[in-house]
């Protein structure tokens, strides 16, 4: 049974990583094909340096991901705090339902409806071009918000409301009470929300496709490449990103595991 389990897990991992492996291998191809491997070379990695199109797109992607994650984390955390304080069941439910729309809806519908809005507004105020940096940022914040809210809300629910009362009684103002008492207990939720927002934004293609104008992010560039002949340079960049993420996450995981082990005896005392 154990062996079977291991084989099954290995097979699924193989399935998940086969295309990733293909991508990594072909990023070292000496010819410009992503179909036939002709020999090892680092040309595509060194070539990235002068590929302004791709580097610009990477920069755009990172700017949008960081900004949208920060803004949606702040807005979303505030929203979660506010929603917890709402006593009226009906309005609470209404807000929660609206919050879930961007999560549940198909990306293509979200993207198109936002595009219609931006173009509509652009026409009203007479812009020459209505899509660009701000529209893609707004779109990303919009689809990130629910994930932040839904990761912070459960933590808030677990927080003992007396803590806040106590802090207020001891002379904190509400803002201080939030930062000194509530914030520490919901911080894991906030961090999870932030990471999710950042990730989703980094990888989003469909919604950006309809809202970015010529503020093209990396997935958009890659999409237009796959419409022609993808060259290994796109694979090279993806490989760099993959390795960076892989190393970071695995290290993070190892450190966490170690920390927990270290903490264990303390808890037992």
């Amino acid at each position, binding site marked *: 049974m154990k062996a079977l389990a291991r084989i099954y897990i290995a097979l699924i991992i193989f399935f998940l990583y086969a295309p990733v492996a293909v991508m990594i291998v072909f990023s070292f191809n000496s010819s*410009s*094909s*992503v*179909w*036939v491997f002709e020999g090892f070379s680092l040309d595509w*990695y*060194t*070539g*990235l*340096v*002068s590929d302004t*199109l791709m*580097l610009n797109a990477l920069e755009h992607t990172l700017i949008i991901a960081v900004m949208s994650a920060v803004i949606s984390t702040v807005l979303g955390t505030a929203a979660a705090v506010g929603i917890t304080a709402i006593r009226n069941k009906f309005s609470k439910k209404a807000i929660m339902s609206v919050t879930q729309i961007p999560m549940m809806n198909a990306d293509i519908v979200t993207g198109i409806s936002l*595009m219609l809005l*931006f*173009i509509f507004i*652009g*026409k009203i105020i007479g*812009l*020459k*071009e*209505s*899509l*660009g940096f701000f529209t893609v940022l707004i779109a990303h914040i919009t689809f990130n918000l629910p994930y932040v809210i839904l990761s912070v809300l459960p933590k808030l629910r677990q927080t003992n409301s007396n803590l806040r009362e106590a802090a207020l009684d001891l002379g904190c103002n509400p803002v201080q009470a939030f930062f000194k008492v509530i914030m520490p207990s919901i911080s894991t939720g906030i961090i999870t929300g932030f990471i999710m927002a950042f990730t989703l934004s980094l990888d989003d293609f469909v919604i950006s496709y309809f809202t970015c*104008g*010529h503020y*093209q992010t990396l997935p958009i560039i890659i999409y*237009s490449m*796959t*419409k*022609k*002949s*993808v*060259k290994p340079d796109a694979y090279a960049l993806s490989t*760099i990103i993959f390795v*960076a993420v892989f*190393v*970071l996450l695995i*290290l*993070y995981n190892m*450190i966490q595991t170690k920390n927990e082990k270290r903490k264990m005896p303390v808890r037992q005392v």
Partner: protein
Amino acid sequence: MKKISSVVVCVCMLLGLLLSGCGYQYADLDLRGEYTRDLEGTTLTVYNWGEYISDGSEDSMDINREFEKLTGIEVNYLTFESNETMYSQLKNGGVNYDIVVPSDYMIERMVKEDMLAELDMSKITNYDLIDSQYKNIFFDPDNKYSVPYSVGMVGIIYNSAQVGEIDHSWKVLWDEKYKDMTLNFNNPRDAFMTAQMILGQDVNTTNEADWEEAAELLKQGKANLQGYVMDEIYSKMETGEASIAPYYAGDYLTMLENNADLKFFYPEEGTNIFMDSVCVLKNAENYEAALMYINFLLEPDIATANAEYIGYASPNTAVINNEDYYYYQNPILYPAEDEMPEVQYFHDIDSETRKKYEMLWNDIKLY
């Protein structure tokens, strides 16, 4: 935590290292026109077809960079994949550009809809290099809105190692011998053309029955195809994934570099000729820089490097008559008069007919 931050620092340093080196070698240009640096620091937005400019890859000249170095104008270069997507993006007001490079029929439509700016030809001093046969064409009879960029014809590319010699006809795409080995265009105008040629129709017909007949033929052919593609055709033909496909002659020459088995012909039923021209949009933010850019594209050195990279026929006499030009008197790009196939230009069709064929295409895809 320390470990994470040190990893982050390492990754950043690695990226920094990658970014600090610089690969491109500027060319030594011999220029005819006058270029000033008056517009230094401004941005010029160019919207062109994908893979349609020499961009520095594989040791070619990076035309945009050369222009940036010469004038100090930053070129924001973006690409589209069909006339229709370009048009729709401009039309909905989502984006705006300075320069676009549409094809003939789309220029006709954009002129009609007042989307293009008149060019100040006194600033485009290299315009005299354009071969007179490419001036005063139907879509721009007075040469007011466009400067020819490249010209070409559609033909059929086939892999002789896989299919041997084949009939020089569009019908090969329907031939069941080649089931799952053929491709067709993934855009309505070109795909319809392949059927219209077989049916002997005028490609600009406004008779609905004609379009329906052509659509019926395309539907019949769908099961025979491996797929509908645009520029993906490069990898499919070069690797032998597909064996027969219609495409633009210039692209065939590029593919030939990577697969010597590929051959090409212009079908006997006739074919489509197209001309892609550089235009400036009415809404352009940087009109003067756009004129300078167009003039720069016409420079003999630039135009030759570009024509060699793209592989399409050039309308520029400084290229055509240059004996060092890689495709000098190439029989596919510049067929002799008696070798010339029967050709038809696409014209802008009235919006009723256009909607008709766009919806027919939709039906074919849904079929």
